[in-house]
């Protein structure tokens, strides 16, 4: 029993990490209606920039703002060169454009920093804590706390501030938002920059766990089932979805794995999300889409 709880808790905490990636997706989708496939690449690029700078001798305290600045520049460029020309195009086009962005980002970050695997040390100890006979990693706790903090901050911004309202309007209808004078370009740049910041934090946490390497983008793909479960537009959903995916993935791997053969975690979250979609096509907390005839 204690083993099961340990696996579960481990899974839940891993799930929080997934949620962090999903948060970036949700942020951008909620505010611009764009499904940003490049989020994973953003995580990798941010982490790589940080790790690369640290490798060159920069201290963590200077590398962080520098990496953040890079992400902001990326956001500005994306808004200017990709989003603005594609304004009011169907969502699918924007989605495919973000696939293109993924490639560009991967190529550039690899070209600049090389594809060498780097370790990342944030100074957070990974020693286990023992709580009632169950081992919990301190690192995971820190990650959860960070994620929780980010969520609260973002939820507050979206629900309570004027900017948040403008963001929600933009997500609904670009042209309508433009016609009431919402400065689309600035909003988008802001949102993508924010997502970039989230990506940086995510990248640092994931990077110190797995090392900064290409596999990070594969991990980022896992965030997709997370947002399916949680709903594309829900910040709370990103957390809940992440927890579900993390927990179920670990539990399935440990208990089902030996029966079917290992490596289940590659597809289990997706199949889970697929089955879930059959029951709730818009996710747990997503907005129901209504089609008028």
């Amino acid at each position, binding site marked *: 029993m204690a083993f099961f709880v340990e696996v579960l808790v481990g899974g839940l905490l891993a799930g929080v990490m997934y949620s962090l990636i999903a948060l970036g997706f949700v942020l951008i989708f909620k505010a611009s209606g764009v499904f940003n496939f490049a989020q994973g690449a953003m995580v990798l690029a941010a982490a790589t920039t940080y790790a690369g700078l640290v490798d060159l001798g920069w201290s963590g305290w200077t590398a962080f703002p520098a990496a953040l600045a890079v992400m902001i520049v990326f956001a500005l460029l994306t808004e200017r060169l990709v989003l603005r020309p594609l304004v009011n195009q169907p969502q699918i086009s924007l989605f495919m454009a973000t696939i*293109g962005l993924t490639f560009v980002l991967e190529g550039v970050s690899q070209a600049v920093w090389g594809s060498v695997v780097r370790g990342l040390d944030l100074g957070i100890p990974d020693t286990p804590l023992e709580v009632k006979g169950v081992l919990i990693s301190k690192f995971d706790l820190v990650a959860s706390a960070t994620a929780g903090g980010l969520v609260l901050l973002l939820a507050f911004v979206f629900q309570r501030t004027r900017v948040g309202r403008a963001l929600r309007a933009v997500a609904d209808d670009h042209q309508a938002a433009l016609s009431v004078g919402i400065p689309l370009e600035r909003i988008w740049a802001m949102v993508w920059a924010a997502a970039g910041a989230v990506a940086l934090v995510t990248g640092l946490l994931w990077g110190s766990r797995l090392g900064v390497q290409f596999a990070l983008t594969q991990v980022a793909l896992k965030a997709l089932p997370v947002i399916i479960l949680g709903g594309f537009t829900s910040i709370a959903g990103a957390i809940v979805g992440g927890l579900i995916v993390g927990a179920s993935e670990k539990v399935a791997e440990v208990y089902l794995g030996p029966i079917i053969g290992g490596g289940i975690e*590659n597809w289990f979250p*997706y*199949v889970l999300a697929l089955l879930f979609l059959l029951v709730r096509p818009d996710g747990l907390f997503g907005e129901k889409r209504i089609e008028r005839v």
Partner: protein
Amino acid sequence: MIYREAGQFRTTYSADQRIFPIAQDRVAMVLLLGTAFVLVPLLASEYALSALLIPMLVLALAALGLNILTGYAGQFSLGTAAFMSVGAFAAYNLQLRLPWLPLLAIFVLAGLISAGVGMVFGLPSLRIKGFYLAVATLAAQFFVDWLFTKVGWFSNYSSSGVITAQRMVIIGVPIETPVRRYLLVLSIVSLLALVAKNLARTRTGRSWMAVRDMDVAAEVIGIPILRTKLLAFGISSFYCGVSGALWAFAYLGTVEPQAFDLQRSFQILFMVIIGGLGTVMGAFLGAAFIMLFPLFLNWVFHAVVRGDVRAGLLSQLELVCFGALIIVFLIVEPRGLARLWQIGKEKLRLWPFPH
């Protein structure tokens, strides 16, 4: 002057419904087919055949499949490579366990098995749309990948996980030389391209496009939505399955899951986007572009950059250029090369007059 339609009156519906209603187009098609079937095998080098034309045609076939699913029926899919994988492994296992089956029958059966799998993964499409469906197709991609890697039966319990594709023989004639493999692939692909064109201009194609454009309205005029979507998944997967089988048997020579990974799915998606969604010609143009572009880039790179260069820089540059190209195409001509071709033809009709 040359491309004038004036004087060509179509007096029957039959003439109007033809794939190439304009005489010049028919002539051009005949010339193209003649070149492809006769001139190319005679004149092209073995390298050109094996490394360029064959993979280009095989991938064009997969692009045709994706075009049917995403271009005509509007069902977004990121799992193309998974269905190719199914086709490849199905063909391998059929040849292995039922060796008395003729090769073409094996390809057809492999396609049908792939079609079946496609329809299973297409079932959710009745409830799920758009991105959700795209992510659901990723489930197919990862699941199939895992299945063929982990379950040894599919690869005949080979220890390395990489199995050699069997030799191809059609009525006693071995198909091993590049020329023969090229002709086999060309024949199959041409035939299936014709079928795709036929489907597009009949009731099936219209039902697909209706479901793509507004499925509520399609239902109201009596189009059976589930059947239409499943048919799209099925036929599309058939094409991808045959393409996968050809990829393994006529190009790679091996059957391995790594050849059909997520990168491959993206590659085919790019072919379809750049080539032009919803057109048969787009699949071919896209495939040609994606195959030739790296070569072009390579040549430019080496012409511009002298001296030593870090290994891998070229492939990273390729990544960046591809990504940028996708974005550029989406902004400038979202309907792809096929549309540019059409515009070119329209200008040609007026030439030498400006309008």
